[in-house]
């Protein structure tokens, strides 16, 4: 069982929901990322989604676009991001880390080299926004052989036939994008999400994480009620943007955001 599968199974056994924060690696500075990852864990993260910055983040709204620009200003490369995970693993061998990003940096590094380095560093899962399963024939086996979970997206527009096929290609969990839009937009409709996630649950045994639009304890609890975990991104990245100057202040602000979400999720525990 992979680290991701283990964590999600334990949570399920306890009747709890996963809290999955996203930050962009290298933002506000590459030196800060590993420390921030540990803070996220202290604040209650079960899994970390670590964004790999890209020059053209087509699926992201302004908040994460700017985070990519800050990270790239400091030259944050995919190799460096993998190095950050390796550093993180020196003190934490429990919290799964999923690299989330776009395909081209992986393609430039070379898929084999990337998969080797990621597995060696202790990366657990790969989520590539612009790689649907149809185009993953060459890449997916490289990940599978190294026990890296391949996490694919499902969207409100995904028809049933595709939901089944995508789940088939996925391991660890599937990521349900809660609305039609880019990250950071405030469009979430909890009733619609509930209906669709229930429908997805009928078609796959994989845990379903829901991301996009979760910004506070209330939305976290509402979505947590109907899913296996919540992914929280833009609101954290925005907090990073507003507290770039002072690392300690930043850690406090992130904790202040995540704590209530953790508590709200745990209050759902059956």
């Amino acid at each position, binding site marked *: 069982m992979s680290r991701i599968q283990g964590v999600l199974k334990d949570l399920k056994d306890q009747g709890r929901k996963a809290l999955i924060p996203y930050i962009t690696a290298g933002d506000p500075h590459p030196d800060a990322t590993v420390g921030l990852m540990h803070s996220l864990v202290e604040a209650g993260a079960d899994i970390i989604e670590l964004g790999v910055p890209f020059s*053209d983040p087509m699926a992201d709204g302004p908040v994460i*676009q700017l985070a990519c620009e800050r990270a*790239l200003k400091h030259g944050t490369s995919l190799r460096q991001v993998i190095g950050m995970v390796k550093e993180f693993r020196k003190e934490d061998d429990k919290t799964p880390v999923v690299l989330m990003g776009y*395909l081209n940096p992986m393609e430039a590094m070379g898929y084999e080299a990337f998969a080797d380095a990621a597995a060696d560093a202790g990366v657990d899962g790969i989520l590539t926004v612009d790689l649907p399963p149809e185009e993953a024939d060459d890449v997916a086996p490289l990940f599978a052989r190294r026990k890296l979970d391949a996490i694919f997206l*499902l*969207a409100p*527009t995904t028809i049933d036939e595709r939901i089944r096929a995508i789940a088939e290609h996925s391991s660890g969990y599937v990521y349900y*994008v809660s609305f*039609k839009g880019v990250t950071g937009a405030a469009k979430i409709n909890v009733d619609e999400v509930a209906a669709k996630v229930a429908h997805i649950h009928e078609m796959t045994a994989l845990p379903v994480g829901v991301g996009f639009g979760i910004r506070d304890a209330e939305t976290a609890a509402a979505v947590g009620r109907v899913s296996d975990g919540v992914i929280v991104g833009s609101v954290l990245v925005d907090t990073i943007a507003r507290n770039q100057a002072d690392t300690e202040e930043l850690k406090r602000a992130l904790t202040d955001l995540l704590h209530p979400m953790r508590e709200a999720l745990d209050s759902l525990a059956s």
Partner: protein
Amino acid sequence: MSVKLTEEMLSALPDARGHFGAYGGRFVSETLMDSLMTLEKEYLQMKKDPEFQAKFDKDLADYVGRPSPLYFAERLTRETGGAQIWLKREDLNHTGAHKVNNTIGQALLASFLGKKRIIAETGAGQHGVATATVCARLGLECHVFMGAEDVQRQSLNVYRMKLLGAQVHAVESGTRTLKDAMNDAMRDWVSHVDDTFYIIGTVAGPHPYPLLVRDFQSVIGRETRRQALDKTGKLPDALVACVGGGSNAIGMFYPFLGDETVEMYGVEAGGLGIETGQHAAPLCAGRPGVLHGNRTYLMEDENGQIAGTHSVSAGLDYPGVGPEHAWLKDIGRANYVSVTDDEALDGFRMLTRVEGIMPALETAHAVAYGVKKAAEMDKDQMLVINISGRGDKDIHTIAQLDGIEI
């Protein structure tokens, strides 16, 4: 070195997943997949539908003014002293460039699909104008995304779009040029996917766009082939077209791909010179990667971040290129070359003074290379330059370079 491409090989491309060899495909976030698959299905049906094709042909004739002439540039040929130079006059199309062939086709598709809101990206503004034009004609809501830098250097076209009733969104992110406009158009599409049709302006983007844009633009090459046979009794020896995303070039090349004797030259923007890195020539100096929904040649750094580009012409200032060109390069069927900003400006001046035809700065790249190539060829040979657009939109840029205030 030319490769024999049979009818059978050509009709098998792109394959069912939109691949041209190793290139093309559909690399987008999941939210868009359903729309792209629907579009593909509908388009493949309409492609066979005589009614759709008749409508398209009628619009091209009565609204665009096709066929565009194939003109023998007698004086330019004499001055050059080599092959006969012929010009395919896409600059005479309504709205002044080849772009309208494609927007007519895609707008027809949009109306068949019942979409009332249209979005587009634009660099030089020609595709934006061509999109705004068809939207005005069909009464569709139109949003055009344009890099903030291009909004400045192509201000005439920005105003034209506004007059036509389009909303122009200046894109401030990234390098503030065409690639960033395309990013924001994709973001808008994801956010309004139910009611919005994205009219992509070139043969890039996710499948089926490279296919359908190529089909709509192929009227250029089909006409040229027929006109060349009518006027000279033979096929051209060489075709020359500028390559930004590659739509005017593929439109010219595609109907000739099976004609072994016809050489093809796609001309990329060499900017300040390939050796300076300040250019927009991914086929000449880039490597394969994935951007904007397809795998193709890209300009990127060693970490896979997309590189900034430079060209005097906004319409060529793009770090990628259509996947079919990537494939044609790899199999050696077409040649890809570049000319610098300065050479292009010379080409602009030469065509203006010698033939009284003022080309767009994009087109001027093809002119510059075409003249150079013709000079190396025999007098009984025939070379066709695709005059993809007219230069009115660039007068400000030219004047500025000449230090003149207008």
